């Protein structure tokens, strides 16, 4: 499958895990990485170009840090403008039907914070419900999100393991080595889960 990574991060600092992930994704052959904030620093999104990109790929990945339980502003802008009626949805617009959508998210909060007893009171996938429903309305399959919790606090080796797993996931999707069937039973995906889902 052809893989498109739409990367959205408004404050790319050197130590950012998200930035490191994006750098790795950029070097995977056959994967298209788009730094949305670099391409549209003034938020004037080129809708035709973005739609063309969607048509040319089979897996659409949103890679972003979770800001106030949602996507960064530009990625929301992207959804608002690119997923047009008549293109992404509506009787005459099912151009994205059959594709897959994957959210690759980092959070500041720990895994425990995203639980009914934690400070955020809900699991992470609940907060991604708008994205899931968007995918569904467009006829796309929303895969379980690939999540790294406590991105600012975890030990360096664990962060590094997540960063390293990311290009493997992208390559597996590209080569159809990712077990979609098995993945459907997961609510979220961690680095450890990938071991079971990526075939040789």
């Amino acid at each position, binding site marked *: 499958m052809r893989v498109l990574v739409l990367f959205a991060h*408004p*404050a*790319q600092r050197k130590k950012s895990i998200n930035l490191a992930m994006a750098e790795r994704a950029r070097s995977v052959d056959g994967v298209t990485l788009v730094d949305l*904030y*670099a*391409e549209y*620093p*003034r938020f004037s999104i080129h809708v035709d170009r973005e739609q063309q990109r969607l048509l040319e790929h089979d897996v659409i990945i949103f890679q972003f*840090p*979770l*800001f*106030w*339980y949602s996507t960064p502003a530009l990625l929301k802008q992207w959804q608002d403008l690119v997923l047009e009626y008549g293109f992404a949805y509506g009787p005459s617009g099912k151009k994205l039907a059959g594709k897959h959508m994957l959210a690759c998210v980092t*959070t*500041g*909060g*720990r895994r425990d*914070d995203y639980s009914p*007893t*934690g*400070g*955020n009171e809900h699991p992470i996938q609940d907060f991604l419900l708008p994205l899931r429903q968007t995918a569904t309305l467009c006829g796309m399959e929303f895969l379980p999100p690939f999540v790294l919790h406590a*991105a*600012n*606090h975890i030990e360096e080796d664990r962060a590094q393991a997540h960063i390293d797993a990311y290009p493997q996931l992208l390559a597996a999707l590209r080569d159809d080595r990712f077990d979609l069937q098995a993945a459907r039973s997961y609510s979220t995906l961690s680095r450890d889960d990938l071991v079971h889902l990526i075939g040789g």
Partner: protein
Amino acid sequence: MDGLAFYAFAYLAAAVFAVIVSQRLGLGTVVGYIAAGVIIGPVLQVSTAGSDYLEQFSEFGIVMMLFLIGLEIDPQMVWKLRAKLLGLGGLQVAATIGVITVVGTAIGFTWQQSLLFGFIGALSSTAIVLQTLEEKGMLESDGGRASFAVLLFQDFAVIPMLACIPLMAAAGNAAPAGHGSTLIQHLPGWASALLTLAAVAFVVIAGQYLSRPIFRLIALLRLREIFTAMALLLVVAIALLMSAVGLSPALGAFLGGVVLANSEFKHELQNDVEPFKGLLLGLFFMTIGAKIDLGILRDNWLVIFAATLALATIKVVVLLPLAWTFKVRTAAGWLFALGLAQAGEFGFVLLSIGQERQILTGQIASIAILVITMGMILTPALFAIYARIAILIDNRQGQNEADQPDEGTIIIAGVGRFGQIVNRMLLANGHKTVILDYRADVVDDIRRFGIKSFFGDASRPDLLESAGLSKADLLIVAIDDRDRATEIVSHARQQNPNIRIIARAYDRLHHYELLDAGADHIVRELFGSSVEAAGLALQSLGMHPYEVEKRKSIFVDEDVAGLNRMAPLVDQSTRVSDNPTFIAGFKDIGRVIESAMRGERTTYEEIVRRGWSPPELGESHSPPIHTTRAPPAGTEP
């Protein structure tokens, strides 16, 4: 020499005095000039000598008036008004001529005389009516527009009338055509017709292809007074050529005007010829006044009075049903009918030709002049009657019939590299612009792209006025010269308190000057592009494009805030420039700038650093469980 100076003094003094008084009384300038003529002629008896020479000279006033009328004719506007122009105007002229001719012959005039009176009566006074409508702000109302269309048609109609009078004279008493010698007199019919056509074609072609390059060259060389001389030369040359082939010089000038109506020099030509036309036309009216025999007024005052009322009544009776037919209803119809109910300045022209061709005797002509003059004096009274009728109609309808507001326009002064971009973007968004620039080559280039643009110095008040300053919504001052830019802004602000003004500033100090002059928005000419370049520099040095964008916009915000903070200080110092306060103020600015620079640097970094910052490492930022329901702090929960 003494004699000439004395006549000049007498004419000018009488004109200045009488025109001011007449204008003050709301009677318009034409009545004033005629009164001045009466003062120097019949009353003071100073005009007798040299009056023939003056009369000849003053006829150039008519030629120039027709040149300017031709210049005013905008084919697009004529097309837009075509229904009213032909329908209303044509029927008005035809019906008035018809009624007056019938009445005239019935009371014992010859048919030639009656027809001539019809011609005179059919025309209204463009000068008086347009000026009054403009003053009262009713030019764009329904009634105003209809009036304008009819006046425009009348201006056209003069031309066949001028051509008809000699024919009428020939048909009547076979009087010799008092033409003097013309080039074509001794040629066979076909040759003279051919020569006449060639002369007309020459005016059209030379106006289009010969005069424009010459004007452009003069404009390029910045020879202001030679431009004026060339404009006058053009009119005089056309007049000469037309006389030579036996056509009316006025007709030729009209044609020349039409040819140049669409050129980029239209406004400049108007401004240059206008004062000469005004004075010469004034002189023309004065010579008419000078010829009035006051004895005739005394002996025939009843006839004159009756004829004046009869003329106004006939015109209203013809105009009012026409207005209703063409759906110019109620108050607007009354404005139309009463406003146009006088005979106009062309009447004097037609009268003098009629007298020359011996259609009229001197006495009848004098009476007719008095009738026309009385009609003009009556016009303000008719407008007053209209005002009463309008109030009555309003009260009856219970609501105001809203006059359509003037069409909003945008004036762009200066279309160099700056103004051009502004203009392009406004055009792209469907706005209409009027462009002024003093570089003929630039204007020429822009016209090639089909943009309405005019040559001229935008800081000249009259040019701004003819571009529609008093009615414009928006003025964009984009010229290079900083002092002129400031002048334009303050002039525009005085003339039109409601206009919005966007001005381009040379630097910070100029920014304050423009603010003082009354500009609403000020753009420093190089500020935006400099920030853009700085941003590209940062990006080239490896900064992320979005980070660059943030830093740019924060820099701009801070800079503008600083500019506004310092405004009161600079304001004070520029006003009292010879004052010790100036030096103190200037030092103050220096300190403010210095501290602002130092201050800006820290605030700038502080502001840029804010946003999307995760909490410090190690610091727990997860919300205290079940203690409060407040949302988690920080932007990355």
